[in-house]
């Protein structure tokens, strides 16, 4: 019995909790992609860099606050910096829309043109970010490190395995939950949210009914930029901020949005957690876990790992391929592709 409890604690500590946090970050990122897709009808390849940009602004504001001695211990100062970072990122993204995307929208360019344009934006942003903050690691986490540390947990329960919960993981989950609730309230209950959904469903009909297309587009960009900033900052708090990581996040984020169904907010959230848990559970080494529940003679020789950690993002790709083969519209999308 104790063996089983130990095994559960072990896997919660090393797979479930990190998976939940990572899943929330992916879900927030995928929500941004799905929103721009629903309204603007293209996959925004620059979204990863938007996350990076938002996180970078948050880091600068955090450093500024820290320099003035502002702190909300035990919470990280970065949370206080978030609103300012969101405003800056939203303005920046709206600027790119005004300068770059609007021209093609007015011309009703093909979506492939938008994709190429977004990859151009992506590289300009990537270069700018690396130019401003440098390509290296930046750590800006402060406040209490653990809500429960592994040793406290062991002392409390008397088990062999510890369960450590990082403050950043709890904050990630809580912030993601708040954001998702706010977003759904906005989309379902407010007039603007409803007009946005109408526009996403049928652009021409919505415009005919007097919905201001320009306004819907601005709100979609603003929401996706805000979500990107939050996702990027949470990711940076939880792991560490490194500009090139956000390029690697692009694939799991797209996979999450497509699995759920491009354009579907619920789909983006489900997809985010699906990808995150698949990655974590497929690359987890089950050796110690099995050691707790199996008798010694049954123990496997190796690490009992299903997939080497280097192939972590192959998981996202395989899920993407399976989706494209079986159900290209995604899990939660009624519209055909």
């Amino acid at each position, binding site marked *: 019995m104790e063996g089983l409890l130990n095994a559960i604690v072990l896997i919660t500590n090393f797979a479930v909790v990190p998976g939940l946090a990572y899943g929330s970050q992916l879900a927030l990122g995928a929500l941004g992609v799905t929103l721009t897709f629903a309204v603007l009808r*293209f*996959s925004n*390849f620059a979204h990863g860099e938007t996350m990076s940009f938002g996180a970078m602004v948050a880091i600068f504001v955090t450093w500024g606050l820290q320099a003035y001695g502002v702190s909300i211990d035990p919470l990280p100062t970065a949370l206080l910096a978030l609103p300012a970072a969101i405003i800056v990122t939203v303005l920046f993204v709206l600027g790119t829309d005004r300068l*770059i995307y609007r*021209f093609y929208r007015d011309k009703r360019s*093909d*979506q*492939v*043109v938008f*994709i*190429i*344009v977004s*990859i*151009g*934006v*992506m*590289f*300009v*942003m*990537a*270069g*700018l970010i*690396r*130019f401003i903050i*440098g*390509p290296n690691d930046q750590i800006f986490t402060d406040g209490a490190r653990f809500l429960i540390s592994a040793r406290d947990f062991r002392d409390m329960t008397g088990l062999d395995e510890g369960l450590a919960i990082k403050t950043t993981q709890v904050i990630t989950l809580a912030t993601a939950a708040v954001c998702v609730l706010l977003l759904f309230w906005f989309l379902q209950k407010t007039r603007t949210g409803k007009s946005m959904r109408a526009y996403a469903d049928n652009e021409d009909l919505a415009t005919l009914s007097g919905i201001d297309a320009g306004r819907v587009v601005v709100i979609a960009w603003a929401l996706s930029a805000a979500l990107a900033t939050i996702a990027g900052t949470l990711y940076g708090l939880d792991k560490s901020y490194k500009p090139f990581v956000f*390029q*690697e996040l*692009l*694939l799991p984020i*797209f*996979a999450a949005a*497509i699995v759920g169904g*491009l354009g579907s907010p619920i789909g983006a959230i489900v997809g985010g957690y699906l990808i995150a848990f698949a990655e974590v559970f497929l690359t987890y080494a089950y050796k110690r876990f099995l050691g707790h529940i199996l008798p010694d003679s049954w123990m496997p020789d190796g690490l009992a790992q299903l997939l*080497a950690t*280097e*192939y972590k*993002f*192959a998981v*996202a*790709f395989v899920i*993407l*391929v399976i989706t*494209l*083969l*079986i159900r*290209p519209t995604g899990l939660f999308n009624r519209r055909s*592709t």
Partner: protein
Amino acid sequence: MTGFKRNVLPFLVFFVLIVLTGTLQSWSLAFSILNLCLVSAVMALGVNIQWGYAGLVNFGVMGFTALGGLAVVLIAADPVAAAWQAGGPGVLLALLVILATVVITLAVRRLIRHAALRMIATAVLVIAGLVTASMVFGPSTEAIEGVNPSLAGYLGGLGLPVLLSWVVGGLFAAGAAFVIGKIALGLRADYLAIATLGVSEIIIAVLMNEDWLARGVKNVVGLPRPVPYEVALREEPWFRSLVDALPLGSVELSSLVVKGAYIGLFVVVLAILLWLAETALRAPWGRMMRAVRDNEAAANAMGKDVKRLHLLVFVLGSAVIGIAGAMMTTLDGQFTPSSYQPLRFTFLIWVMVIVGGSGNNWGSTLGAFIVWFTWVEAEPVGRMVIDHATAWLGDDSSVRNHLLANAAQMRLVVMGAVLLLVLRFSPRGLIPETDRR
């Protein structure tokens, strides 16, 4: 604008730039740049076939390039007999099991009519096949990697002539493109872009981690070359008389001759591919492709199988990219999987095609020449500009040091900005697509 001014003059300007690099910096550098310009031109041609002819977005250029590079290792490197003995049969058996799994799965899927049953049967068969394969695979690869790990530790290649690997590289890339195209074509255009991006990251991850195949990040060095070695060259009588006739040292001249030989080979390949591409574009086939690109629905209504044509063009373009990848690895003489940065160089190839003129093969060639030249020369020039512009700040100014340290990053910004500006103000590029009837 006359045809000369628009089509020939830019090429002349480019060659003047190369000559300037040769005289101002060094001829060795100029030849190296020219070599990579030619390789880039082949890659850009591949992307142009996909994007310019058919409007397909391929963000996985580096993955196909890496497959071409792998072909050089597998074809041209010397076989490692001990490794074959240790694990060769096991690896072959595992591959055979995977192949059998695929065949059986496809056959079973034909036989079962019920949709849900079919899916369950597929899943069971695939998982069973993978588990069986990995049981033989793991021990054999370990045995292979254990054979003389510092020098070999991989199966080696077939020891065939290196030029053959260029063809095989194209075939490898075409095979990968066929699978990806089958999955992602016919759906939304974004899906192809995302799927190619994903597959290129996975190809590169596999090449970096599967040491038994091509030594992974330990790199395969000393690949055979289609041109003579510098040291051997210096022994040749005709080369000695050349050294006497020219005002150059024998070491420098031998390196120039070798690079020149590569230039000759690459020009031949580029010329053949350009000729083929131009002929295809001029033929009724090219007219059909343009029709499909410009109005899919109409072409479909006229009885053209749009999905099949897209698959064909995607496979052809990727094959060209694979050939370029094999050429690049041959030029380097080594296979270094970690040097393939999936997005960065893919993006560069895209800038070449868009700047040069999508849909025009000469345009993409010119774009490749100019963009690669700029990419290489922008670093020293940019550093120099920033160095001079911030000199007044003094040597210990943090702003100046930060700018100098991160100057290299500005190249990305400049390339991105160039792409956006060309797309916006001159979407047809330097040498626009000609209206053909």
